[in-house]
């Protein structure tokens, strides 16, 4: 490389820059989270994401360039999702114990998770595209992207809706659990995964492995249920109106 190549261009020719930036933001975010005494309204991932967005803006690195380098990390999401099968197996006896209430709760709760927000957005006059983009807001990202494309929504807006939903689920669950006098980690975990997808599940693993396993269960069941039924329901409603 010649001396007049801008330093940033030089550094971003290797994905290691984006990977290093992500690692740094993650470690710094986690350290800050500990220092702030683990506030439930400000999860570690939000602190880290804000730091990372700030860093990108500061050095003027376009998001697309960063994202390309970060693929080296995001590609691991596939095997990491598969890895969730292990805690799921380890908690299988506890889950089987509760299969009947969970089977009753899941379709109702997963449907309502989408319907509440859709109804409110519709009442506030949001466009059809926006409705289609936020419909899958409680579904884990890889599944939600597929659903949103089928509904004709915007994937970028969907990811925004996923972030907001995931982050807000955490204080909502601690608030609602206190209000309803629930301290059963299994219920809290299931609610975190069902409503807050991967972000809620990560939080549940911070509580305990049991909460984490129920969260992975809630997350995957919601994902499958919504993926199968939402596009179908959407088509029926669109035909009716």
């Amino acid at each position, binding site marked *: 490389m010649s001396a007049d190549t801008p330093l940033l261009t030089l550094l971003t020719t290797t994905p290691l820059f984006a990977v290093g930036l992500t690692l740094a933001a993650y470690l710094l975010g986690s350290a800050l989270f500990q220092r702030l005494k683990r506030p439930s309204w400000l999860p570690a*991932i939000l602190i880290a994401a804000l730091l990372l967005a700030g860093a990108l803006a500061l050095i003027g690195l376009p*998001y697309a360039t960063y994202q390309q380098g970060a693929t080296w990390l995001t590609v691991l999401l596939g*095997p990491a999702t598969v890895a969730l099968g*292990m805690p799921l197996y380890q908690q299988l006896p506890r889950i089987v114990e509760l299969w009947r209430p969970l089977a009753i709760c899941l379709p109702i709760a997963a449907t309502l998770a989408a319907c509440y927000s859709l109804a409110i*957005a519709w009442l506030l006059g949001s466009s059809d595209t926006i409705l289609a983009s936020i419909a899958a807001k409680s579904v884990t990202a890889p599944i939600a992207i597929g659903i949103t494309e089928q509904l004709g929504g915007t994937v970028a807006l969907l990811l925004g809706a996923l972030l907001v939903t995931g982050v807000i689920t955490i204080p909502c669950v601690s608030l609602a659990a206190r209000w309803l006098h629930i301290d*059963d980690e299994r*219920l809290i975990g299931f*609610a975190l995964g069902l*409503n*807050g997808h991967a972000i809620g599940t990560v939080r549940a693993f911070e509580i305990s492995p049991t909460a984490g396993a129920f969260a992975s269960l809630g997350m995957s069941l919601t994902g499958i249920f919504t993926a199968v039924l939402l596009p179908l329901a959407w088509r029926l409603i669109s035909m009716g109106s």
Partner: protein
Amino acid sequence: MPALSGFLWLISYWLIGEVVIHFTALPISSGVIGMLLLCATLAVRGRVPSSIAAAAQPLIALLAMLIMPGVVGVFFIIGELAGQWSAILIALVLGTLLSVITTLWLLKRLIGQPHVR
């Protein structure tokens, strides 16, 4: 290298998920199919091989970091939706609060609290 062979298992299950999706056109991600297959395999074998545990545990611990690059993208689309944000935010925040309360209330009604840990 137990972690390495465990990692190969995880990748293989993910790839099997891709194959299943290709042939069935299921609207599910291959990660979820792989997860269910892994869980089923472990249930059949009746134990977790140390190689899979060695690969799965660190990966699960890293989940938060792995979704970060996608999450950061949100801050770069804010400009595109000027004027719509308040409605979207209200819908998401209020909708999530309502749905969390409903979920927990339903679970409490259906399960109760048989033993508090």
